């Protein structure tokens, strides 16, 4: 064994965005870091893929709305090439008759609302202000390592006291509202405050995007709040498109990590985490190669990390049971269409096609789409979030051609009868659904690809194809994410850490989990 060349301070398993962020922070702190990525390029679920010759699309995540500004600054992503092609994406809730509602990012109001209701504009503004105030509180806690309950440690107690105090500081009314609303379902909140079905459907869909919830499921307000913690260009709750697709974001992160001295090895899938004397001391690759390090950091999801890479033999049975019980049933499929020209949508001009388009005409529509998913069926009338990135970024497709990238819900991970036979049917269903708003779309399609949750699981190694590495439910959050006892980014085995979306604060291209994990690792390093 060559000790010097093959010896690192830290090995990071997985070059997804959180792994790269963690590597950059550790590298900047002077650690010698190696990132091992199974795929041919880093980026994980936020990488670009060429799904048809000449057509490049953001493989899984396709909108940037949550990237943490502190991470972005610390890593100096702008100097590593990150640019936004559309810094403040609008959302257009599509109506079949062309009377659409347009709003800024998440929840901002627009005059088109008055077409539908006299009061919605003012009420939505009130609701938005409230949700953003609560979202801001959440955001403050996203950037910190969660405390552990029931310990004698003063740092945990102080962290809990801080949490309590921050909630109190909201003031009596907001605090009451927060304690009430976090457990509510989004349908109730919207029905209480708003009138327009189209508007309620769009916001309700935003609240359940990527989750195993319908708008009537309690907990769905929380998942909306999670989205609202994000910002783009300093505007809270806004959405943006990066120039060059999401792959540009992870490319900039990889550049930042390398600039900080980290090595990135692609095409190097890890087979096992190696343990010696009750501590993690390196990894074995699938090729059999062994690499040693003081610590191992896993950007893989918790189930893969603990059950596959580490193995239950090193863990308590109670802990293993909790890991097995993490809910990771993905419900969102990703649809990519290569088009030989710009499609026409009823009531939209060419410029508007560059915005985010939602098919979720009412809360009932989304709830009915969800019904199917509960029983292992796909939605016969799915709710769809679409972008046509080529409107703002022509380089992603050949001259004059376009791409439609869509999240189609609901497509359950466990489909009765299996996905193999149903895939084409579901693509047809999705295209038919979109065609109701874009007549003539079908004639423009030259290539199509659908990633079901099963495909996402296989391709991106996320169990259940769940883009949060685990449902964002109240019982899987904060000090319980991914499981109690491992929610502080440290595994119950010395020398092993996790930095993925399976930990606090969950999924979305935020980079916060990677940063928090680095904080924890560096803090432990000092006390060592």
């Amino acid at each position, binding site marked *: 064994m060559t000790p010097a060349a093959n010896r690192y301070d830290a090995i990071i398993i997985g070059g997804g965005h959180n792994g790269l962020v963690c590597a950059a922070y550790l590298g900047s702190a002077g650690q010698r870091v190696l990132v091992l990525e199974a795929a041919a390029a880093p980026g994980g679920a936020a990488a670009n893929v060429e799904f048809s010759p000449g057509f490049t699309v953001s493989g899984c995540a396709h909108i940037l709305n949550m990237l943490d500004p502190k991470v972005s600054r610390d890593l100096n992503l702008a100097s590593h090439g990150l640019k936004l092609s559309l810094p403040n994406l609008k959302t257009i809730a599509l109506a079949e008759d062309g009377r659409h509602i347009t709003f800024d990012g998440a929840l901002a109001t627009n005059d088109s609302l008055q077409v539908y209701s006299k009061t919605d504009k003012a009420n939505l503004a009130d609701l938005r202000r409230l949700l953003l105030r609560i979202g801001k509180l959440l955001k403050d806690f996203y950037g910190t390592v969660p405390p552990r*309950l029931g310990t004698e440690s003063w740092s945990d107690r102080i962290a809990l006291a801080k949490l309590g105090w921050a909630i109190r500081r909201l003031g*009596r009314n907001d605090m009451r509202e927060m*304690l009430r609303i976090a457990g*509510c379902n989004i349908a*109730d909140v919207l029905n*209480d405050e708003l009138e327009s079905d189209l508007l309620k459907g769009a916001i309700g869909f935003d609240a359940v995007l990527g989750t195993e919830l319908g708008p*009537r*499921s*309690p907990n769905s307000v929380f998942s909306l709040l999670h989205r609202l913690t994000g910002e783009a260009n300093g505007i809270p709750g806004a959405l943006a498109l990066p120039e060059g697709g999401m792959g540009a974001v992870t490319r900039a992160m990889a550049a930042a990590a390398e600039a900080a001295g980290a090595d990135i090895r692609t095409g190097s899938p890890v087979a096992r985490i190696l343990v010696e004397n009750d501590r993690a001391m390196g990894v074995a690759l699938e090729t059999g190669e062994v690499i040693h390090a003081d610590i191992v950091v896993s950007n893989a999801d918790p189930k893969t990390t603990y059950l596959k890479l580490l193995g239950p033999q090193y863990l308590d049975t109670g802990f293993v049971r909790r890991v097995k019980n993490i809910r990771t049933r993905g419900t969102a499929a990703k649809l990519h269409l290569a088009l030989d020209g710009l499609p026409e949508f009823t009531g939209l001009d060419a410029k508007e096609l560059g915005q985010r388009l939602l098919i979720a005409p009412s809360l009932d529509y989304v709830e009915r789409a969800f019904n199917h998913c*509960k029983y292992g069926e796909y939605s016969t009338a799915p709710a769809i979030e679409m972008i046509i990135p080529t409107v703002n970024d022509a380089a992603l497709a050949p001259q004059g051609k376009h791409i439609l990238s869509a999240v189609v819900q609901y497509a359950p991970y466990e489909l009765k009868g299996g996905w193999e036979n149903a895939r084409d049917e579901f693509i047809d269903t999705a295209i038919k659904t979109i065609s109701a708003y874009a007549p003539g779309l079908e004639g423009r399609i030259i290539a199509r690809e659908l990633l079901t949750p099963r495909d996402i699981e296989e391709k991106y190694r996320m169990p259940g194809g769940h883009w949060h590495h685990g449902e964002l439910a109240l019982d899987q959050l904060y000090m319980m994410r991914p499981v109690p006892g491992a929610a502080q980014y440290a595994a119950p085995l010395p020398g092993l850490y996790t930095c993925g979306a399976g930990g606090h604060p969950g999924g979305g291209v935020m980079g916060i989990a990677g940063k928090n994990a680095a904080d924890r690792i560096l803090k432990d390093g000092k006390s060592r």
Partner: protein
Amino acid sequence: MKVYDAIVIGAGHNGLTTAAYLAKAGMDVIVLERQPYIGGATVSRELYPGFTYSNCSYVCSLMRPEIMRDLELPRHGLQVIPYEGGVTMMRNGDYFATYPNHDQNRREIARHSAHDAEAYDYFGAETLRQCRFIKKMLLTTPPDPTSFKPRDLFGLLDIARRFHGLGEEWMYDTIRFWTMSCADFLDQYFESEVVKGHLAGTSIIGTALGPYSPGSAYVLLHHYMGEVDGSIGSWGYARGGMGAVSGSLANSFQSYGGEIRTAAEVEQIIVKNNRAVGVALSGGEEVLGKMVISNMDVKRTFDKSMDPADLPEDFLHRVRNFKIRGSSGKLNIALDGLPDFPSIPDGCRGRTGDMHVSDSMEYLERGYDDWKDGTWSREPYIDMMIPSLTDPTMAPPGKHYMSVFVQYVPPYLADGQWNDEKRAAFGKTVIDKIAEYSPNFKDLILHAEVRTPWDIENETGLTEGNIFQGELTMDQLMFNRPVPGYAQYRAPVKNLYMCGSSTHPGGGVMGAPGANAAREILLDMRIKT
């Protein structure tokens, strides 16, 4: 004109509980009841000659033993007889029964899954642990987390201390239990569909949630909190029907000198200078009191029985947004004899308890989907019981009374309003479903009372017929129930109190809201008990 110390609106079990506690403390209390009989939704009624129907609530267990002792209910005529388990009949002709005897229960579960028999003990231990934690909170007033009053701070501190005392693992389990879905909770333990289907039934009773909805695990717990003779989680029949509960409360109340007036419908609560001073009855008569206590749900109290000008606008807005969703219906059936249930073996005592036909959680969830779509469940959840097998006073010799609780039944139908024809169609759905499992059932029916959410509302005053006076979801529990900032039984108007199930800890024939309200009132009156 006489001025009472307190006027209680509604002679439901909580109103009577509050009234009895106040009368016991020496106050001059009158209870006003709209119906010609007392009890609200805890009644025994002879709607068919010779038969006694518990035509609303039908089983007893949640009634707090502290209240039974304080008000000496057994001496005033309440006798609870535990029943012995239950049974779910399966679509494949098999059955799944539960028994009070641990070994027998285990053998029966093992018949469906050896794994589940093993898991059941863990499940039981965890549920019991959660019950113990919550039970202590039932008879306490929820502290206001936004307040800096010493009392609220100490209350919060006490909960935090008890919570911390659970130890790390249990603390997490407790948080999870309060927020997760019944399905996710049961999936952690069990693999057999029928075992899960049987247990999940209690998570949906009275609730506009399906077993797959987050938060439904708590409802499961809510129904597990009961105890009969100190045995936690067991259920029983009140001898003589549920009217025996309200009857014994009324007897207790009257023994302390209280006064009950039936057929006295309150039309409006009279407020002068931001103080409740009495009520106006529908005939125009006024009854005056130093305070008014409402056992009605919050919507009926504030939105229907008060002048909006007497209430803060924000409060009224929240009352209107409080979720009281009708989701249940009921059939009360007089039977000429005991129906056959061929899938239940002879001698299985499950027959004397709750009988079901929902043999999977998916069955229940699909029932919920129908409700969301504005129709009663085409395959309903049916909780049927034959109390006359245990309590012969309920029906003439050889004949039987059957109580059939049905979930889900929406108050608003997608294809128009409820009418007689639709009610009959709903009744037929339920009877046909039972007849699938009992060939001679239809022939035995002497009389059937079919009740939609509106029938329940019209009779008992419960908004949309919601048996809990408000959904038991996280946003409506504890300090959020019924309205954040008003969870301590006091209304925003002076001398006006709430004592119904709209307040903490919610519905079920528990008496806890009534007892808690009485305690707060006596605190305000500076009367020591």
